């Protein structure tokens, strides 16, 4: 708990896994620096790029020239290796005691970071997770089918798992570093299930979780996918968590 005292300034490490996000990563960095410089907090952005063929890493290097190599860290990997290991990789290079994870595709807006940080300071929670389904939150850009799938998935997960968290598959979260290190070791799922597994295992391990409302704008540039394969994968993951947590 000593880490919570404000006598030493806290450092926030923001982990952003990317794959072909050349434009989005630049836009995201601009918005991150704009928000966090106003807030006067210490932070670093760690970009974990899985060998994007579109030159994402070139753009990050140009951003480093503008914002500084101590502020934007490029920690690439040799191939597309999955989300869980991306966080493990990023954590190795993170100097902060608090880790933010967010998507690079602008569906998570940096303007909510101050409310994550404030909530954590108020509640001393181990995890602050963004939720789309509480007052003040919301989604933009989903058709009826996407909404129906999301609500169905949510009701099913709540009936089977009793997770005490309103938004299980959201991936905009603030963690204490040791908590994220512990969880990421325990989690094996992929895709949508990974974020659900992280938060369900966190509740089972007794970590404290606070929620803040966020809005989610489905990706503007690029495509997001939710097909039959993802749904089957989700159902399998749900059962896996039902039997193993």
């Amino acid at each position: 708990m000593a880490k919570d005292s404000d006598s030493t300034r806290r450092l926030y490490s923001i982990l952003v896994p990317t794959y072909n996000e050349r434009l989005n990563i630049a836009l995201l960095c601009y918005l991150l620096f704009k928000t966090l410089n106003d807030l006067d907090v210490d932070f670093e952005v760690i970009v974990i790029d899985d060998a994007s063929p579109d030159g994402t890493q070139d753009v990050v290097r140009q951003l480093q020239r503008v914002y500084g190599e101590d502020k934007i860290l490029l920690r690439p990997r040799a191939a597309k290796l999955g989300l869980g290991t991306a966080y493990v990789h990023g954590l190795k290079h993170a100097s902060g005691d608090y880790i933010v994870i967010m998507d690079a595709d602008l569906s998570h807006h940096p303007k909510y970071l101050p409310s994550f940080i404030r909530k954590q300071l108020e509640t001393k929670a181990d995890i602050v997770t963004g939720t789309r389904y509480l007052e003040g939150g919301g989604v933009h850009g989903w058709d009826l089918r996407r909404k129906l799938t999301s609500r169905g998935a949510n009701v099913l997960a709540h009936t089977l798992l009793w997770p005490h968290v309103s938004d299980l598959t959201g991936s905009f979260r603030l963690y204490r570093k040791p908590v994220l290190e512990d969880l990421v070791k325990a989690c094996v799922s992929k895709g949508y299930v990974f974020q659900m597994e992280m938060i369900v295992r966190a509740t089972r391990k007794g970590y404290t979780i606070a929620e803040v409302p966020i809005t989610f704008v489905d990706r503007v540039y690029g495509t997001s996918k939710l097909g039959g394969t993802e749904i089957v994968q989700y159902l399998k993951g749900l059962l896996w968590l039902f039997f193993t947590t």
Partner: protein
Amino acid sequence: MKQVFKFFGVVGTLIATWIALLLSPELSPAFRLVVPYLPVYALVALGCYGLGMVGYGLMVFPTCPEEGVLLQKDIDEAKAFLKQKGIDVATQ
């Protein structure tokens, strides 16, 4: 305790209560008529609850079209900044 045990603990308790009711001798005849079908009612009720929750969730689904507009403004601002700094973000 694993979730699967908690879950079937609740289910088991319900089934045990039902069997106790089935076997109890001092039930009124009207009640005795209903008891054998209680599991069917329970399943139907669970299904209705599920469908009801999905339907209600859809009805009150929080949307934020204004956020789409705000994000577009932020994107334009960011693009102007990147252009000014000479960062090339054009995608092929």
